């Protein structure tokens, strides 16, 4: 699965990446992530735990000699932890020269979502909405489009509270 999606990714030219999203599942919800951030998709790897980190940073992995941190997106969104299985994937993204792996339940497909089909998420005080920068409509489905930068930078205060 992962391979075929990746294959599809490689075939995309840089300029045609716009408006294209890699979609993945977390439980029953479907999320999308801009393809330009994604560098690769791998199966779940042995994770080295690093002490004193917030729960959702599971540790570090060895990606062909490069050591990168991995984040469990479920835990990041304060959803219950689910045991990793052979459908679990790590999406490696590159943002502002920071590489990080996102652990998700499973990857789905690469989709084009035209800008006209994307709406701004409603303002709902707290919650995971702050990581969502848009809601994309595809047929009968909706995809929650992630704001990767916020995923990495926001919520430092919470993360400190988590470990205490």
């Amino acid at each position, binding site marked *: 699965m992962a391979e075929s999606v990746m294959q599809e990714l490689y075939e995309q030219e840089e300029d045609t990446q716009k408006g294209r999203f890699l979609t993945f599942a977390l439980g029953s919800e479907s999320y999308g992530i801009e393809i330009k951030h994604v560098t690769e998709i791998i199966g779940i790897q042995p994770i*080295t735990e*690093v002490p*004193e980190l917030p729960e959702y940073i599971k540790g570090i992995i*060895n990606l062909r000699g490069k050591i990168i941190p991995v984040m469990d997106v479920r835990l990041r969104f304060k959803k219950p932890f689910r045991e990793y299985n052979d459908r679990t994937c790590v999406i490696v993204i590159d943002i502002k020269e920071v*590489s990080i792996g996102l652990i998700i339940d499973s990857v789905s497909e690469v989709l084009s979502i035209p800008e006209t089909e994307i709406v701004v998420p409603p303002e709902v005080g707290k919650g995971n909405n702050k990581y969502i920068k848009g809601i994309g409509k595809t047929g009968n489905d909706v995809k929650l489009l992630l704001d990767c930068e916020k995923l990495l930078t926001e919520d430092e205060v919470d993360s400190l509270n988590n470990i205490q």
Partner: protein
Amino acid sequence: MSELYANEPMMDMYIFETTQNIEQLETCILDTEKAGYYSQNVVNEIFRIMHTIKGSSAMMLFNNISMLAHTVEDLFYFLREHKPEQIDYSTLSDLVLEVVDFIKGELDKITQGDKVNRDSTILSSKIKDYLEELKQQNAITELIEKPVIEKQSHYYIAQDKTENKINLHMYKAIIFFDDGCEMENIRAYTITHHLRDMADEIYYLPQDIIENDESIHLIREEGFQLYVKINKTYNEMFEFLKQTIFLKDLELIELDNDEEFKQFYKPIKKIILDTPPVMIPKINNQNYQEGKEQTITSSNQSIISVNVAKLDKLMDLVGEMVIAEAMVTQNPDLKGLTIVNFHKAARQLHKITTELQDMVMAIRMVPLSTTFHKMHRIVRDMSKKLGKEVKLELIGEETEVDKNIIEHISDPLMHLVRNAIDHGLEATKDRVTLEKPKIGKVTLEARNAGSDVLILVKDDGKGLNKQKILDRARENDLLIKTENEMTDKEIYNLILLPGFSTKEAVSEYSGRGVGMDVVTNNIEAVGGSVSIDSEEGIGTTITLKIPLTLAIIDGMNISVGKSRYTIPTTTIKESFRPKENDLIKDPDGNEMIMVRGQCFPILRLHELYKVKTEVTDFTQGILIMVEQDEKTLCIFADMLLGQQQVVVKTLPSYIKSTRKIQGLAGCTLLGDGNISLILDIGGLVNLNG
């Protein structure tokens, strides 16, 4: 030259060579200042350096640097040519050093990839003013550059050819040069010079191409007019002139009579010109020998400069190769196979990778001398400003340290040397009263000590005042022990704490709002440590202990549950399985172990890092006794996995920015592809108080 501008090797070379030149220039000035006057050699040398910098900077389009270098070049040209006697050397040195600082600053920006745009006109005009002053003081009006060639050279009549007038052709040529080729007058001169061997008579307009550089404009507007009597056919003549470099337009007319030549005949004065004797310089033996010593640079160049980033990359690759090698040779698939030849080959591979690793390490090692020599400048500036006479002594400057580390210790050293002069040394008059040598001494010493390098900054000044330090520490609430419990060393080390500064007034040099804690931070950042020794009235010594290299360490791998940790071997004193009755627990629940009559605290790694493990009973696991900063600690782990060289990698920046994890120095990849966390023993022993 824009097409070269973006060329990386050119940029590297520019930075490398200019930095070298600037450093050489600085040394030149500092040495000269001691002598009190600029020798002819020094003047030549500075002129040459500035000339080189001017040229290279202009090529790289760093016009502010180029312009500044040009001004200094002019100044030293004057010094070289006129040898003025009244020179204010002190001001001259200050000016040149200011230029040195300016260019250094710009070079830093270039290295960082920033824009080079600092205005150099103010500094340039300061230098120009100084030059004007020099000229006036030494009563020299600017001489018009003397033409090097004979003055009347605007026509030639070759002596031996005058007889043979029969075959002579007469030509008039008008030559235009390409726009922007510059120095058209000299290009014109080049033509006449090359014609001289063939032609009988040569006349040209403008006539004063040699004497008057203004003739350039005339040549640009009206062309260079040439009248020649020569034994050549029209075609030969045309072909000859066609060879002219940057020829834009050529008009060649064969004249029937010498009517047009007459304008040149007025003062009929046949000047018989010998070709000026070509001076062949006597190359004395010394020069030749010098030439011999400098190995021929062509294809067999003996030294090249390499971008540090490439070295870092190489280091990484070798590190990965070491890991890959382990992954191959210790591959679980090989278990139980009898493969003699494989092991033979594996041993050979191992030997080569080890050698390769050593070589890469060796390449990265650079002597401390450059860093040490920078201190001459600090001492000079400080002693001038503070009016203290100071002598700087350097010992062991050839000691080598990893390139990356050198970058981290340069600033702390500078700070320490400033401190020593500003706060350490007494004022000159006080030293005389105290019957100490009038000239204060600061010693910078480096030496190897195992896998560390020790750098000592020593002064023979007044030493630290314990009482003052204690008072200050008390004021700032920095004391953790009672005063009489503290050793002298502990008291001195108080000044390394953040927020401590013994000097009330912040002076221009040492103060700057930063204290010794910045030095400590910098040194600790490279895994080093700082300690202080002092004796009142005798002086102070500050010792920096720095690891030789950061990139590869000898490590002992240990396991706790599923986790792997690596302890730098140099910190390990011993490891052992404890006996039940050696274990002690104090009323606060602190666990300790008695070894040969001494008591040491125990750190349970699984508790500290909350790792799940079966092994929680001391007698089931192993204790590793480690020591750093003269503190000892026993680390409790499940078991030892073995010793190996590991390549130190930093933790991903995302993790470092999320949280500073105590006791972790980084991570490394093990042979099986697993990641091990490298323990920072210094952090752990201090964690425990």
